[in-house]
């Protein structure tokens, strides 16, 4: 099963490599990993998407908790949560027909066109991984020049939170 694990970790050099090293050393899957400092600059928030049986995911959370730099951990998949991913996608839009169709699809998916040239559109799209996949599929008839995905960020719904 797919799990989204959120971690608060000391914002120190090497903290990311401890997490990445743990996954490779113990042969755990890692689908995506995002990390950035929080409102408290001494802490970073990391979201890891991983896949494994319950037993393996239990080990993953225990091993992550065991890392000295990990302050707190929450498996978001255990409760209601929201996940979002952001994609930047550059699409060929040279003819009038192409430009209109890409604009229309972007609107349907509530994307924002954030850069325009005579031959390309760059669209910013936020949503679940599934929505982003669907948008890429919807653009099948167009020429995709490049895509950049941020990886998943997640947060628990309601009052539940991950904080020190």
């Amino acid at each position, binding site marked *: 099963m797919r799990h989204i694990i959120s971690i608060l970790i000391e914002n120190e*050099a090497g903290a990311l*490599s401890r997490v990445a*090293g743990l996954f490779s050393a113990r042969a755990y899957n890692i689908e995506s990993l995002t990390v950035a400092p929080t409102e408290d600059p001494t802490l970073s928030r990391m979201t890891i998407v991983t896949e494994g049986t319950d037993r393996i995911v239990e080990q993953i959370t*225990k*091993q992550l908790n*065991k890392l*000295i*730099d*990990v302050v707190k951990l929450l498996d978001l998949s255990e409760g209601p949560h929201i996940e979002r991913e952001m994609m930047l996608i550059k699409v060929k839009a040279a003819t009038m027909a192409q430009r209109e169709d890409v604009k229309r699809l972007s609107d349907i998916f509530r994307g924002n066109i954030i850069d325009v040239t005579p031959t390309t559109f760059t669209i910013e799209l936020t949503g679940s991984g599934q929505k982003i996949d669907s948008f890429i599929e919807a653009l099948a008839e167009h020429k995709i020049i490049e895509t950049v995905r941020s990886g998943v960020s997640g947060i628990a719904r309601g009052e539940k939170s991950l904080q*020190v």
Partner: protein
Amino acid sequence: MELSGAEILVRSLKDEGVEFLFGYPGGSVLHIYDALYRQDDVKHILVRHEQAATHAADGYARATGKPGVVLVTSGPGATNAVTGIATAYMDSIPMVVITGQVPSAVIGSDAFQEVDAVGITRPCVKHNFLVKDVTKLAETIKKAFYVATTGRPGPVVIDVPKDMTDPAIKIPYHYPDKVTMRSYQPTVKGHSGQIKRAVDLLLNAKKPMIYSGGGVVLGNASEELGTFVRHLGYPITQTLMGLGAYPASDKQNLGMLGMHGTYEANMAMHGCDVLIAIGARFDDRVTGKIAEFCPEAQIIHIDIDPSSISKTITVDIPIVGDVAGVLQEMNHLLQTGKKEPKKKALAEWWKTINSWRATNCMNFDRSSDQIKPQHAIELVHEITGGDAYITSDVGQHQMWAAQYYGFEKPNRWINSGGLGTMGFGLPAAMGVQLAYPEATVACVTGEGSIQMCIQELSTCLQYGLPIKIIALNNRYLGMVRQWQEFFYENRYSSSYMESLPDFVKLAESYGHVGIRIEDPKDLKAELERGFAMKDRLVFFDIVTDQTENVYPMIRAGMAHNEMHLSPHGGELPQDPHRELS
């Protein structure tokens, strides 16, 4: 008081109560060595190779329960230390290793003797630090000791760039009494509800089994374990790491379990209905085939490390906590509760166990005209009154030492169980002998293992360490040969030791005593003669039977009831579980 970084480092070690610093100098740590030279509180022990520094510190830690401390230089100093760090990590030994590093300004430039020590050691330490600010040095050292010695212990590395120890930069010194870390708060107290449930389950058992490990030794919980086991009257087995936590001679003790465990211990594991694992981690050498591990048992597991619980074996009642504390609580419940163990069922269970015991699985050929290694170990036990500190290397001799020495006390059996590091024994013995100068310290080794750190004979001379080296010399890498005999149709690929040195002359050249023993008739007298030399290192080169194997043996991946037994044991009982291969 204003001190340089180097002085702060040394002073911090003193304030931490460090007696010995095992190390080897080099460019990046010269400021620190200069600070060491100017004080007498922390005694530096100069080894002959950095691997030995880590093993010596490790041996010191295992014997005393106090953290071992190491100082090595950058680059090769750090990489040579890695084997010892990994050894300590696998066996959860508290250790603080200080590695020198090139100056901060040149880190990353492939400077002379530069390695990414933090990166290289990351997978085999509990935690590591790179010191970037000399004002944080003392606090970092305090944190390192705190992390190394609390919770599940382990090695911690502090990488110190040379500019952090610059004698020209003096700053105020303050060593904190304690530190707190928001990201590290080990659980020590077991959950009372879980403890009650566990006690209930234990008292309902008809065929109970107690399986204890190195956590009891590390957690200083032998006394609590003894009370617990005697109160219940249940059988107990120990892992390789747990030997000595419960006296070997006690009737309730079935000996070691696992790959080279006793017949009775393994059969009782296979047949039990309630198993309590105490400070043990279900290592693959213990469990054998996971699918057939304790097939009928409900399992209780006490461990201070949550990640040890249900890692390989799913347990029914997990208890995360310090073993001593949990056992105290259990003992209290047992002593104050009304419920008693099931006497009748227990008597039946002991009857079955005693029939397994009657196989006499540890017997060996006592009439041989060659020296049997098991006999040598039995004699070492006899001569030392069972009260020596025994270190070992890795291989057949390690198993024989574990099986035949009969450890009565904890912290006396010092071996590399998890990583299985050849070369561990002699340097580990140095650490033990330094900690206990009056004690008898023996290193049981083989002619293969001893050569991996033989250079330490020189360190032993320098510090006058009267270690007794029991080299069981069978001219083979014995355990490799045994596996090749069993599983590779006697194709002894690279397991024969040719061109061995004359160990007697070798020992003498280092200023020690060498004794070669070839005839079983001389064995006892020669061992006695050597052990009587209280102030000398004696190297016993004992020429043993080349064909001897370690029994019983469970092949890797087989179940507990699928054992190879020695041809010299007694009758096998009729048992429905038994499927000897």
